[in-house]
């Protein structure tokens, strides 16, 4: 399938996949596709950064290759790894077959089929892929330095084998929760987009998409409640993912309206820190529920 023609087209494409994107995000995605540059998405947890990649992969359609970053991630878990056991076996076989000429042995031993592909290599080989490098902030600086080659030229150099290049460059989406600052060199290679919390109207639209079972009235109240929390300085205000979960939880309890008792019992779905929950319990909660109901009516 061809790439979307313009910004409106891109927005419609994401919309069709169930992602309600604003104009700025659609523009950035459109530019990334046409200019062949990676996207760096930063934003608070639970604002739908990973979801963009999933929806885009499904809609383009592209094979989604996901690399979940973690502390101390190295080449062998991110890019490739030589299968040493099979190599040793090949040496034994060569010995018994009487091959001792060094060049042919080396060619045989460093063949592509002894190389195990991990996500980064998988994304370059085979059918066109969408590479999602998730939570890059969890990886360490040496890994970022390694990523630079891939992001600049869409190629990986294996010292023993040579350079492996992508026939069709993958679409690359990098996400970061900012638990560590991503290095400037990576930033400069990417198109940057800050994924903000959506406004009330867009959040209701997202809820209607992602949790269609939730009654419209309840959905509006839940959104108003969450939006109210985000304005104040909670340690971790709820993300869109939490709003969706909460609306689903209340629906599962057969509620059609937000009311203090159920809200109190299910607060753990929305807020994940005891300080925040304790701050909200009691009269404060009743007041906010009341406000949310007024705002939604």
């Amino acid at each position, binding site marked *: 399938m061809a790439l979307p023609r*313009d910004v409106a087209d891109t927005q419609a494409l994401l919309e069709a996949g169930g992602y309600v994107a604003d104009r700025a995000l659609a523009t950035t995605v459109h530019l990334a596709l046409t*200019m062949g540059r990676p996207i760096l998405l930063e934003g608070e947890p639970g604002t739908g950064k990973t979801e963009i990649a999933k929806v885009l992969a499904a809609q383009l359609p592209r094979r989604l290759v996901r690399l979940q970053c973690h*502390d101390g991630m190295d080449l062998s878990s991110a890019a490739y790894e030589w299968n*040493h056991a099979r190599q040793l076996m090949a*040496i034994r076989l060569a010995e018994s077959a009487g091959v001792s000429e060094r060049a042919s042995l080396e060619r045989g031993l460093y063949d592509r089929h002894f190389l195990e592909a991990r996500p980064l290599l998988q994304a370059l080989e085979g059918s066109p892929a969408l590479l999602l490098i998730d939570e890059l902030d969890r990886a*360490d600086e040496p890994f970022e330095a390694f990523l630079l080659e891939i992001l600049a030229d869409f190629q990986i150099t294996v010292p023993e084998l040579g350079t492996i290049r992508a026939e069709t460059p993958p679409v690359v989406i990098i996400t970061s929760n900012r638990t560590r600052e991503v290095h400037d060199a990576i930033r*400069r290679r990417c198109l*940057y987009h800050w994924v903000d919390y959506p406004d009330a109207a867009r959040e209701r639209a997202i809820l209607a998409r992602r949790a269609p079972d939730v009654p419209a009235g309840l959905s509006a109240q839940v959104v108003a409640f969450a939006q109210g929390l985000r304005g104040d300085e909670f340690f971790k205000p709820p993300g869109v993912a939490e709003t969706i979960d909460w609306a689903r939880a209340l629906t599962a309890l057969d509620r059609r309206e937000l009311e203090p008792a159920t809200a109190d019992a299910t607060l753990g779905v929305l807020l994940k820190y005891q300080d925040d929950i304790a701050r909200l319990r009691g009269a404060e909660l009743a007041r906010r529920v009341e406000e949310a109901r007024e705002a939604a009516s």
Partner: protein
Amino acid sequence: MSALAPNLLAFGRVLRRAGLPVGPAETLGAAEALSHVPLSDRAAFRAALRATMIHRRDHFEVFDAAFDLFWRNPDAPVAPFNPDEPPPESLPPAARRVSDAMPGASPPPPPAGEQERREDAALAVSDRERLNRLDFEAMSAEELAEAKREIRRLALPLAERPTRRFRPDPSGPRADLRATIRASMRLGGEITTLSRRRRVTQPPPLVLLCDVSGSMAHYAQILLHFLHAVANDRSRVHSFVFGTRLTNITRALRNRDPEVAFQAVSHILPDWSGGTRIGEALARFNHLWARRVLGQGAVVLLITDGLDRGGAEGLAEAAERLSHSCRRLIWLNPLLRYAGFQPRAAGIRALLPHVHEHRQVHNLNSLRALVATLSAPARNQGKSA
């Protein structure tokens, strides 16, 4: 083509003059991006410029202000830019810096408030000089200079943490199969020795939180030297100072020359030697920065005397949250030098239960003792340390 390209170049210059790191690569990227979006769609136009020219969230405010000012004629991104056109009457505060950076703008006289603040700062500096001598054990200027040199020589050997990377090491505990097989190639596939490797260790990130309020002014200069020495000694150091407000001085401190670095710090520091609201500063840190700089087992050095101008409201909560977010919270307190130190002040009592370690920092010896602590083996996984 139209006037778009020159306009874009001019816009890049405006952003640069407003202090954003915008170079030719950014401008070129923006030019390419603009060929893919309709110029009449203002939202897309803005998004395209922002995605290509800006690389971090912190720069959005300045960018948006510059965008609104520079492209203020919404119909004509392609019309020639007229630098003589007067800027709109009322500007949002963020736009002031940008409007000064616009071509044709004459630098306006600095607002009266700023002038005053500069003079204040100058006064505070000379005060500190005098008090330094008193407090750093009545040092002469020469001795003080010597002390600064000493501090610059201090290396902080924080106990290292294992990473998940390896380096070749002939006596390492693990076999390195990749290197072994590569070596065997030289011998026609004969494996004679196992290559070995060892885990790489790395010092943990360090976060410095330094109080520069009035009651700490005696130490502020010498401590700034300490911060500067630490920040340039190693990678992964984040430095913050707080009085009534919290300021990130990491980038300013990065200059190798201490005088240049302090110049840069004094430019961004809003409240030198004012009062302290420690609780508020820590809460602010928890809210804005904790998740961004306390990853990967960070150690926090909190440098304050614990004397809070407000009644220490919220300090206990903020300190508890902070101590949960880092691997080790070390409080450096200049007041500890008095033999009969009693934790009486509300701020000190609120802070004390939540720090993993409470140390003195009022002379070079105590700084050296601190260095020894930080390099001690990691018996410090919990509060019992």
